[in-house]
């Protein structure tokens, strides 16, 4: 084992580095140490390499800056590097040349060294055989794009389509919107060209009239059974789901006249009508028909405004004498489509107003529509020959994937039955590793976005296969070579891990014994936190390694009035927020001891009791914001922590301790001022409560 200490960036000015290295010597016998004024410089790295080589060390502690910076410089083949963050977490945020700051730095060093001593060597999980074929479910625009891109990248792609032809919704269109800048003419549909390219590609296998019988296995090794009259089974490495959408059921829009007359149509029906039949002199479009309405679809489908505007141009193009009336809630033409909106507006026979449709009453010859809250200043009544209802998108059910997972046949959904994907950070990722959602099945979107989605999801599917081949995790811990290892002898089949894993990594046998599928795992460690028997751990993140860190610090006795607060911070948002606080030189109490965790959900109860019995006065857990618009990178790690919190309070009660000794808080990555407040206020509160009575035991 070796230790390199950097004195640059002010680290050496506030801390007695000689003493720090002395402490290292006391903790680890014969540890090779060095000190450098700029460790990340070329000269510093040279020294570092020499140190590691001379000592023959395979584990190296670097006491310097945050692990979030300089990670490339300090990466060393065959050497496990532990970064001890003295800069952002100690020197920059605490009083220099202060006894308490010095103690804090020394404890952080002890924790780092303890971790290095406790972790085991990393041997990645690489399945014996990793399949590189990719399955695409759904042959609409997103699916076709994904298929062609995947095949062009050299992967064999199996495209499964339940209908008898490719193209999906895009394939049924009369015309397309003008090119992105919004000027010019309506374009001829081009999906058939794409479909032909897909059919002609030698790396593509197309299965029409086929559905999925079952999908089992894990990334790199999914076994797929098709149902198409024949017994077809495929083995693929990853899956792209592009099963698309269907229009909202217009029969539920009776109040808008649907079903009363063939003169009242949906967007889809009018698309078909425009292809073949005569267009009357007056057509009225009702936008947001059953959308953004709690009684129907509460959301905006984002495509219907543009689609209706496009159809308004069909009317004007096919019948130049015709007038078009558009009743909208808000025109929501996404992105560059605003230009298209302006183009449509420049047609003086297209009349637009916002308003709420009050009644739609057809008779034999025409339809009368009344509108309230219109911009025209009063209730209005309009006579028209045809009404088109712009209905929204309902995603296809992902239950059709027939996943043989303990946690269900479909993809987990967030609101409105769209399959979950982390909209901001990882748009195509579902909660099922190796299965990527593309197009309207994951969010309402238009053709351009679907195309982009198909390409994006295919890239992810390819990336996943390549990661599995190297035994690496996919996002967000990309490159992580560890995986959960279970000591099954002590497992009690309690099912906690199989239920709490957000990604369905665990299946179960009949007895309820967990069956691990390591390639499905995202390495969040929630199972580590969930296991009451403490049988789950990663090579570098286990019950033992964190316990060792907790127990490594020196706790002053109660008469010294120097409390110790253990802070578990989630690596994803809370840790960066803490770093940002450091960069901004916000002052923190020197009594805190910080341990980063993979996810707040990975905190095991035993660590809490370890800390309390070791004499810490309080434990603060800081994670990412939970909730519907979750920021948690592992979906519900923070929520689980909250739930488990109740359990912890019971533990406190049995130990006769105050409930304040454990606290959980959530922050966003930008909340660096908030995190300062959370920590310092907690320290002040604990000082009032007084020392942990277990301290002197």
């Amino acid at each position: 084992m070796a230790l390199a200490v950097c004195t640059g960036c002010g680290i050496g000015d506030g801390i007695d580095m000689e003493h720090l290295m002395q402490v290292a010597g006391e903790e680890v016998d014969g540890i090779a140490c060095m000190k450098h004024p700029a460790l990340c410089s070329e000269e510093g790295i040279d020294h570092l390499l020499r140190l590691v080589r001379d000592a023959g060390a395979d584990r190296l502690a670097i006491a310097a800056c945050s692990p979030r910076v300089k990670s490339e410089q300090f990466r060393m083949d065959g050497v496990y590097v532990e970064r001890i963050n003295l800069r952002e977490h100690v020197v920059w945020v605490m009083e220099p040349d202060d006894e308490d700051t010095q103690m804090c730095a020394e404890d952080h060093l002890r924790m780092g060294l303890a971790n290095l001593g406790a972790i085991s060597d990393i041997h990645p999980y690489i399945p014996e055989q990793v399949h590189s074929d990719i399955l695409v479910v759904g042959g609409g625009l997103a699916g076709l794009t994904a298929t062609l891109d995947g095949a062009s990248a050299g992967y064999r792609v199996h495209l499964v389509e339940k209908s008898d032809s490719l193209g999906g919704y895009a394939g049924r269109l009369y015309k397309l919107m003008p090119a992105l800048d919004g000027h010019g003419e309506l374009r001829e549909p081009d999906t058939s060209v794409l479909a032909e390219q897909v059919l002609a590609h030698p790396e593509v296998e197309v299965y029409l009239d086929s559905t999925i019988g079952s999908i089992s296995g894990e990334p790199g090794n999914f076994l797929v059974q098709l149902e198409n009259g024949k017994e077809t089974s495929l083995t693929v490495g990853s899956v792209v789901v592009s099963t698309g959408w269907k229009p909202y059921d217009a029969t539920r829009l009776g109040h808008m006249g649907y079903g009363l007359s063939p003169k009242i149509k949906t967007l889809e029906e009018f698309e078909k009508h425009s292809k073949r039949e005569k267009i009357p002199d007056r057509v009225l479009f009702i936008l947001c028909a059953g959308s953004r309405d709690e009684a129907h679809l509460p959301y905006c489908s984002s495509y219907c405004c543009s689609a209706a505007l496009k159809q308004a141009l069909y009317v004007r193009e096919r019948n130049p004498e015709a007038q078009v009336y558009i009743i909208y809630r808000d025109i929501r033409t996404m992105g560059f489509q605003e230009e298209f909106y302006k183009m449509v507006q420049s047609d003086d026979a297209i009349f637009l107003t916002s308003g709420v449709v009050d009644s739609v009453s057809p008779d034999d010859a025409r339809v009368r529509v009344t509108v309230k809250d219109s911009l025209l200043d009063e209730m209005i009544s309009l006579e028209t020959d045809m009404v088109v209802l712009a209905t929204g998108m309902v995603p296809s059910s992902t239950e059709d994937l027939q996943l043989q997972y303990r946690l269900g046949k479909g993809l987990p959904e967030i609101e409105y039955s769209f399959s979950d994907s982390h909209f901001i950070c990882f748009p195509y990722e579902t909660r099922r590793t190796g299965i990527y959602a593309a197009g309207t099945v994951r969010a309402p979107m238009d053709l351009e976005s679907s195309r982009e989605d198909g390409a994006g999801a295919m890239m992810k599917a390819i990336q996943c296969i390549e990661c599995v081949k190297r035994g690496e995790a996919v996002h967000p811990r990309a490159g992580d070579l560890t995986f959960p290892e279970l000591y099954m002898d002590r497992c009690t089949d309690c099912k906690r891990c199989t239920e709490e894993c957000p990604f369905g990594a665990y299946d179960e046998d009949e007895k309820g014994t967990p069956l691990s599928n390591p390639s499905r795992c995202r390495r969040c460690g929630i199972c580590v936190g969930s296991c009451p028997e403490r049988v789950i751990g990663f090579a570098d993140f286990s019950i033992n390694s964190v316990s060792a860190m907790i127990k490594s610090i020196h706790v002053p006795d109660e008469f010294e009035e120097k409390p110790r607060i253990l802070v578990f911070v989630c690596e994803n948002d809370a840790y960066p927020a803490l770093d940002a606080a450091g960069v901004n030189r916000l002052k923190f109490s020197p009594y805190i001891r910080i341990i980063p965790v993979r996810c707040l959900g990975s905190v095991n109860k035993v660590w809490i009791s370890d800390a309390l019995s070791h004499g810490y006065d309080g434990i603060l857990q800081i994670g990412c914001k939970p909730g519907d618009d979750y920021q948690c990178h592992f979906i519900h790690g923070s929520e689980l922590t909250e739930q488990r919190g109740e359990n912890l309070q019971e533990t406190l009660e049995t130990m006769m301790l105050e409930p304040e000794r454990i606290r959980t808080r959530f922050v966003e990555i930008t909340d660096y001022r908030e995190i300062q407040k959370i920590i310092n206020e907690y320290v002040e509160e604990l000082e009032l409560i007084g020392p942990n009575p277990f301290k002197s035991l």
Partner: protein
Amino acid sequence: MMDVKPDIGFKRELIRMSGSQLNQCMQCGNCSAVCSLAPAERPFPRKEMIWSGWGLKEKLIGNVDVWLCFQCGDCSSYCPRDVKPADVIAAVRQKTYMHYARPRFLGKLVSEPAWLPVAILIPVMVIASILSVAGTFKIPEGPVDYSGFFPHVWLNSTFTLITLLFYGVAFLGLVSFWKDMKRLVPSSGQETGAGSKIFPVLGEILSHSNFSACGSQRTRKIAHMMLFFGFGLLILVTLYAIWASHTGNYPLPFRNPFKIAGNVASLMIYSGLGIMVYQRLFNRSVFGKSSYTDWLLLTAIGLLTLSGTLVQLARFGNWSCAYHLYFFHLVAVWFVIMYLPFTKLGHIFYRTTALLYARSIGRK
């Protein structure tokens, strides 16, 4: 409930006259927010913009709000979609003159370029016939004396009569305008007699207080005042001249106070016109598009004043072309004065009437 039947012809007319891409209006209401004259309740010009976009002629013609706008251009300056509400409202006013013109063709006569020759030919023919009947339709000998060409009695009686005739039919138009205003924007109940509002409204007009609030074009107030008071002064001078021509002390000598006043008035008109033309030519982005009728009126006023000045110089200088200038001047007088109710100058009647109605129902 309003039965909406879009009049696409009317909409296209407004687009043509205002040069506004009406449909691009997104009804943000910025125009009404920046307008310093819009009433708090149902302010203009936001609602007028969507009515225009839907071709709702019946809501716009005879709407009192259209006349509360003094076209300062603030709305157009601040419009995020550049749909020039000020110009659209101006176009609606132009359509109003045409709508209430009786007989109808008088409206067309002065608002469509194709009819311009006819509009000129009418006064030429009428004046020529009067002179023929009076028997003086030839250039007189000797020093310039206009009464020898057009005897004062003939001039004063015929021109007064014709003016009254034109203004009489215009009055009928104003009556239906008043009725339409009442129908479209009924009083909310606290109506005060229009009579009691005459003096406050005159005060508003004379003080130009409605121009003062404008942010975009400060010079407009000055220009309009020059023209307004110049014009007013000239009318006074003309009335005095008519009286003087009957009492014998005519033509007025150069140093006569009324003569001096008349020339000062001309100078005021020239200055006002100068500013207006300059703004239209070099400050288009703020001022907006000028229509045919706008230019026609400015030209007519310019020619009227210029020919008046020249006629006067020709008399003092005994120019040989004096009578030709005089004839031309009379045609110009006709063009500006007789056609007044049907041109943009018709705002003298319509706006005054509208202000009277607006103030009487408490709309401000």
